[in-house]
């Protein structure tokens, strides 16, 4: 019976994903996906930032340590930042924090994308793909831990 329950639980696993998106592109893309009635899984909770560069890697750490199964970040394509170069700086920080997470085997739970305001379809597809990926990984090893 124990085995059956675990299997059932696995089937029903709905990941919690925290997303950080830039106000000028991906947040608008998410809007566009909504207004164009594109369907995508409702697993992600999006937090709007005013720029990619506002993404302090501590946000990512905090989300993961508080038990998020996945974290994603999405901003304007490099070269298209509303504030000229915010996403270039963000890219370096993301590469650094992912290197640290990789050491702990958590890097596959933090992804980042470039999605512009016009790419509503891409946003919906990305969310589908990401949710599938995280479902495959299963619950975060940090979920429910007393930290």
């Amino acid at each position: 019976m124990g085995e059956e329950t675990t299997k059932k639980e696995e089937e029903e696993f709905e990941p919690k994903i925290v997303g950080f998106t830039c106000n000028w592109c991906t947040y608008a893309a998410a809007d566009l996906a909504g207004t164009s009635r594109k369907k995508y899984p409702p697993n992600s909770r999006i937090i709007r930032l005013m720029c990619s560069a506002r993404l302090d890697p501590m946000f990512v750490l905090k989300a993961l340590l508080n038990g998020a199964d996945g974290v994603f970040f999405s901003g304007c394509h490099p070269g298209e930042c509303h504030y000229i170069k915010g996403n270039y700086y963000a890219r370096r920080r993301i590469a650094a924090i992912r290197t640290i997470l990789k050491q702990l085997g958590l890097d596959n739970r933090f992804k980042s994308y470039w999605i512009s305001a016009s790419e509503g379809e891409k946003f919906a597809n990305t969310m589908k793909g990401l949710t599938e990926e995280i479902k495959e990984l299963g619950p975060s090893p940090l979920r429910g831990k007393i930290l």
Partner: protein
Amino acid sequence: MKGVELKSGDLEGLFKGLLDKKVVDCLILPHRVGNNVAHMMVTDKDKIEPPVPAIFAPSFSVNVANIVKGWLIKEKIGIVAKPCEIRAAIELIKLKQMDKESVLLISVDCPGAFTNQDYADHAEEIGDWVDSAKIEELKGKGIAIREACEICDKRLADVGDIGIVRQDGDNVVVVGITDMGVEALSAIEDISLEDKDIDRSGEIEKIVSEAKKKKDALPEISSVEALEEFLRDCIVCKNCRDMCPVCYCKECFFDQPLGNPVGGDLLNIAELRGAIAVPANQLMYHLTRVYHVSTTCVGCGACEDACPKDIPLTRLYPVITKKVQEIFEYVPGKDVEEPLPFTVYEEEELEDKLR
């Protein structure tokens, strides 16, 4: 490169000359305290006491860069220290915690350091001048150098303004690395600079390969569970932060209510989750610190020395931050003109590191 060959005993004269000629207003250098070595700040040249070879002593007390951090004063400070301390000072200059013009950095060849306890217990046996053969011999007797020093591959005096390079016997070569260093040396009367060509590539190769071997042999922290186990005894006292030369925020996030919740705040979080570890934020604290020093950690091991619970933090900080430094091809403290990785960017880079 301009330099001068001296006997180690002559260094006393060199330091006195720096103070005498007002090249520096003060000197911070190691001196003997009982069986061990600590630092002192000297303004009066007569207080420089022989034997000056204490500057070579294989003992690490505090990373001197941590002491002068944030001083931003007009007076010129001369610092005689190990290469890791000088590299930390260079990082602090880049972080605008020190003024480049107000420090004269003098690095000294380092054979690696013993723990304070081991050094004090066996000071006579160890002596001031150890080489790799002597270290091996001592190791056989159970006196081993610090883990941070074992995995350090940059222990030669090739950083800062002036380098004090050890030769055979008790000979040393003092070289001016930067223009400021050459100028400082030429101001001293009884020193005449000559062209010195020192090729240490063979020595460097040997150190790098040995350090790599030692590092690869260290147990790796390769999962969250491993990190939890590693930090099992951590009491979040934050000594590792306080003793870290490159952790420089005036107000640390983990001293503020959000990073260090107490009382009602803590109770609220506990109610939200059902249970919370206290003191709170242990993993968050260490991972944040790993990220914050990721490009500037010089691997001096001051964090490990500071840990009251004897957690071998060398296996966490220098080891993981090195991987971040590798993706930016950045060596902290190598060059004062090289910008910090997070302050610059290239238009096309790192795309394979993002997802």
